């Protein structure tokens, strides 16, 4: 516990002091997003790669509201439904010129937005081969997480619950197993609804948490961003501290000796 200050999240050799990764979508305004990012203490923010809108140029100023002196920008392949589409989007994202990192998403189902693991693995292999630092958004399935790691993923990002659902960590045991087996960082991505969900993810041993809606759509996004920062820090600290074992009966905290009723 003496080295709290040096407890960094390291992905592909790059160190982040904050273990909270946040999105840049759905905020009431660019300014509120910037304030929320600052309050969250995040050092990594995801963005989507989209066609330049030739009729409405207001959206492209987004990047001006991300403080790149403190925040690393992570392009994603959100909205892609095939490996080809995701690979093409990742290449374009790299070409914008900020980094060779990609939060890789290949969606397999429109209603649940669950990942297509087969296509995800295929896209991971191709992009790793091309020199990308690949962070795949995946199911909370230890087997696919192991395969992604073997394919060269720089981290694995299992979902806590469906994207935007706010249901919290639905399968804590899987997250724990994924953490136990992984040699790359495990980032719980999607499903967080409130601060306790983020704390639980970290208490399970996750190396970080990625969220967007829980902050952006909160009634007060800036306050929620701060709550998430504290929750991630608290959960991390609790995990490192080592929790007590669960037991089914009470165990008194005060000494039995010296009780007045029994005293001689």
């Amino acid at each position: 516990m003496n080295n709290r200050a040096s407890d960094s999240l390291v992905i592909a050799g790059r160190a982040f002091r904050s273990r909270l990764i946040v999105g840049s979508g759905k905020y009431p305004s660019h300014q509120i997003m910037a304030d929320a990012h600052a309050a969250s203490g995040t050092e990594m923010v995801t963005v989507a790669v989209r066609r330049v809108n030739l009729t409405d140029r207001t959206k492209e100023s987004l990047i001006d509201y991300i403080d790149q002196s403190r925040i690393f920008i992570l392009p994603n392949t959100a909205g892609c439904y095939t490996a080809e589409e995701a690979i093409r989007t990742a290449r374009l994202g790299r070409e914008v010129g900020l980094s060779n990192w990609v939060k890789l998403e290949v969606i397999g189902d429109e209603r649940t937005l669950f990942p297509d693991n087969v296509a995800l693995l295929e896209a991971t292999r191709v992009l790793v081969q091309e020199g990308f630092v690949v962070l795949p958004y995946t199911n909370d399935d230890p087997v696919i997480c192991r395969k992604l790691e073997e394919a060269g993923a720089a981290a694995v990002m299992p979902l806590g619950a469906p994207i935007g659902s706010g249901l919290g960590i639905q399968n804590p045991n899987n997250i724990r197993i994924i953490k136990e087996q992984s040699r790359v960082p495990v980032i719980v991505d999607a499903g967080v609804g409130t601060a306790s969900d983020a704390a639980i993810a970290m208490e399970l041993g996750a190396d970080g948490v990625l969220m967007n809606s829980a902050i952006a759509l909160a009634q007060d996004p800036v306050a929620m961003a701060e709550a998430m920062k504290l929750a991630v820090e608290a959960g991390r600290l609790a995990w490192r501290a080592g929790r007590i074992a669960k037991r089914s009966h009470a165990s008194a905290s005060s000494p039995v000796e010296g009780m007045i009723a029994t005293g001689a």
Partner: protein
Amino acid sequence: MEIAGPKTLAVLLAELNIDPQRVAVEHNLTIVKRANYDSAIVREGDEIEIVNFVGGGTA
């Protein structure tokens, strides 16, 4: 969108008021490096894809 050609990609981006530093461009499905915007010639019927970063989280 239909654009009269031929012209360089750099000229096309300038006409569309797009900052080349913020975008990536595909010309007939092939990525054009930023250093080549001045030499890449866009002709009538070519397919140009111009992307940038917008807000997003997951999916």
